[in-house]
């Protein structure tokens, strides 16, 4: 019980419930099952991006190229699928993951093997991917009419009344959660995030682990790119600008330490929910739609400051316990 009270996720869930209650009072007619399903459908892309970002942040890196990567992969799959209607849709699903992984491998090689600073390296690749997205699209915009049903089915097909994109996001979360928590490579990611030196001494190949972490992030961002275009049935080279910031914000909100080595998938899941409640329900209140961005920013700052205080009290408690032992 005490453990539950001190857990960070308890606080997050309380915040989430408060937000939902607020939304229930302020927008009573919007609070339907369909609205919630729509909300989840439209925010699943953030979930995919945030999970990928989390894997990278756990290695004490950061990836700000994911939004551009999303746009690039989305444009490639869109343009190819529109040009070749005969090829089954699964091809594009797989192509998106592979292409994303390749782009992630570029980041991973630069950061892992060539020891570049992650922020700057991904800043550079952010420019590159966005430019490639334009080069591939040639400035063309795609609208709902040009999208094939076999392509869109991955996002909008309903299984048990819930769109496929939500299922995919949930499956990815569970898989990545199991991978990070219960497999050796997953634990290695935590290890190099906590301390590079000691993990190197322990025999972990730090460059290789970093490399694969970025590949996971890239693959998820690529998948998100295909699903994003499929979900909205629209795409152009400038889409999803600024999503990387939202993904990072979700991670921080969910308790992933930006210094690496700390953070769990359940926190990120609750972070996604909080973020999508803020963006969706608050924007439905008349006159409040302009408040979205400011509220998001303020909530993250408050979350990080609360983090600071909880960490400090935890440290003090740990010190006291140690003192009692001595």
């Amino acid at each position, binding site marked *: 019980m005490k453990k539950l009270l001190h857990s960070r996720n308890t606080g997050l869930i309380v915040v989430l419930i408060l937000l939902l209650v607020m939304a229930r009072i302020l927008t009573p007619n919007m609070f339907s099952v369909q609205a919630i399903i729509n909300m989840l459908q439209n925010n699943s892309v953030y979930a995919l991006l945030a999970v990928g970002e989390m894997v990278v942040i756990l290695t004490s890196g*950061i990836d700000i190229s994911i939004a551009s990567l999303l746009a690039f992969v989305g444009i490639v799959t869109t343009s190819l699928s529109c040009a070749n209607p005969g090829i089954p849709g699964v091809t594009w699903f797989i192509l998106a993951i592979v292409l994303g992984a390749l782009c992630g491998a570029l980041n991973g090689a*630069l950061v892992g*093997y*060539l*020891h*570049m*600073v992650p*922020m*700057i*390296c991904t*800043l*550079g*690749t*952010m*420019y*590159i*991917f*966005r*430019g*490639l997205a*334009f*080069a591939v699209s040639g*400035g063309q915009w795609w609208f709902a009419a040009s999208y094939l049903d076999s392509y869109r089915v991955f996002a909008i097909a309903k299984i048990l009344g819930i769109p496929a994109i939500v299922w995919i996001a949930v499956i990815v979360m569970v898989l990545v959660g199991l991978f990070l928590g219960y497999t050796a490579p997953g634990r290695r990611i935590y290890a190099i995030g906590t301390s590079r030196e000691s993990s190197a001494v322990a025999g972990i190949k730090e460059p290789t682990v970093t490399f694969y972490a970025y590949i996971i992030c890239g693959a998820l961002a690529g998948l998100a790119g295909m699903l994003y275009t499929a979900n909205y049935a629209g795409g152009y*080279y400038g889409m999803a*600008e*600024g999503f990387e*910031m939202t993904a*990072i*914000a979700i991670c*921080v909100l969910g308790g992933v330490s*930006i*210094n690496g080595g700390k953070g769990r998938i359940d926190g990120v899941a609750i972070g996604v929910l909080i973020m999508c409640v803020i963006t969706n329900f608050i924007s439905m209140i008349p006159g409040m739609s*302009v*408040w*979205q*961005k*400011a*509220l*998001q*920013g*303020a909530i*993250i*700052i408050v979350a*990080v*400051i609360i983090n*600071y205080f909880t960490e400090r009290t935890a440290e003090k408690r740990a010190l006291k316990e140690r003192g009692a032992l001595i």
Partner: protein
Amino acid sequence: MPGSNYDRDLSVKEGFVLSKFLVKWEMILVYILILLNLVLLIFKPELFFQAGTIQTIINSGFDSSPLVLGMVFILLLGDIDVSVAAQIVLGGMVTGLMMNAGIPSIICVLAGILTCVLCGAFNGFCVAYFKMPAVITTISTSMLFRGIAEIVLGENSLKNFPAWYNKIGWYNIGGIIPLSMVLFLIMGAILIFVLHKSPFGRKVYIVGNNPTCATYSGISVFRVKMGCFMLMGFMAGIGSIFFIGRMGGGISSSMATGYEMTAIATAVLGGVSTSGGKGKMFGPMIATFIMSFLIFVLGLLGVDPNTKKIFIGIILILTILVSTVNKQMIKDIKLRLLYHNNKNIEAVNDRTAELVKKNKNEIKKLQKAGGKDAEIKKLQAEIEAAQKECKEKSAQFWADQQADEKKAKERFAK
């Protein structure tokens, strides 16, 4: 106080060596700038000599120049500030709203700058007092600042700005020298003095290199960080004047997106390390010129504005790779290719190389001084012996390693 500790001469006297000066990062940037000019000269000679081309190039790239100057300080601390573009919008908004209210223009401008300084102070307080990571702080404050601008402005844009704003973006003094460049150089000169000649600048370097060490040497890390972030805010306020002037005197809440990344990219191109404590003011100043020339030249060569991003990205990555990583990289590659991943072989080779270098230098000295042949011969013999020993040892280590691997294989095969 003669005789006390304060009497020591602490200034570092580095002689001027031409060969070292020519391969400095700042000089390499100058070469790149000249190269860009040559490209322009060769491909568009008629444009290059036309009056006004160079001025247009410089004017076009200088709307983010004050941000670069401020960003150098932040990066030297080892922090990063991605909220500057939002600060520009917020500062511009305050100025515009006050102008609409009919308040004298000078007060409006000062209020706009003050807003940005306060924004910077808020960032600085979060980073320095709460010890929040700068990336997260500034991402969220950029959302916050831009969100406030969105709340106040909505879809509207402000168009009522002092008339001299436009001159900063477009006017050339005497038709030749761009006003924005002159202002940029003046600001740069002041900040060079602050960073390289004042106590505050030295403190910035120390805090950037090692905050713990700085704390124990009696430097208030909190104050230095606050100072830098407020300076960044001030420069963002100036930047809003530049930006609005360049945009023709109008601002809305969705403008200036991506300017923070341009500023960071320019500062990094100028040789400032993002891990803090490394870099100079001159580099980013030259890099600002390079960026504006690069974008313009690519545009003239028919590369469209979005494809330019690929070039900027590649150049950014290449410069970082070349400037900061090459030593470590070469070591890694050597270890992998030449030394069979064996650190013992690496160590032996390194030691021998050092000895050979030292002896060769001594031989040179002796030859210059007209020393005895016997001594030179002795040194040469030493070199040969060392090299021979090194080869033997390396072979020995390599053989050992192979034998070990064989043994391990045999053991696991059973």
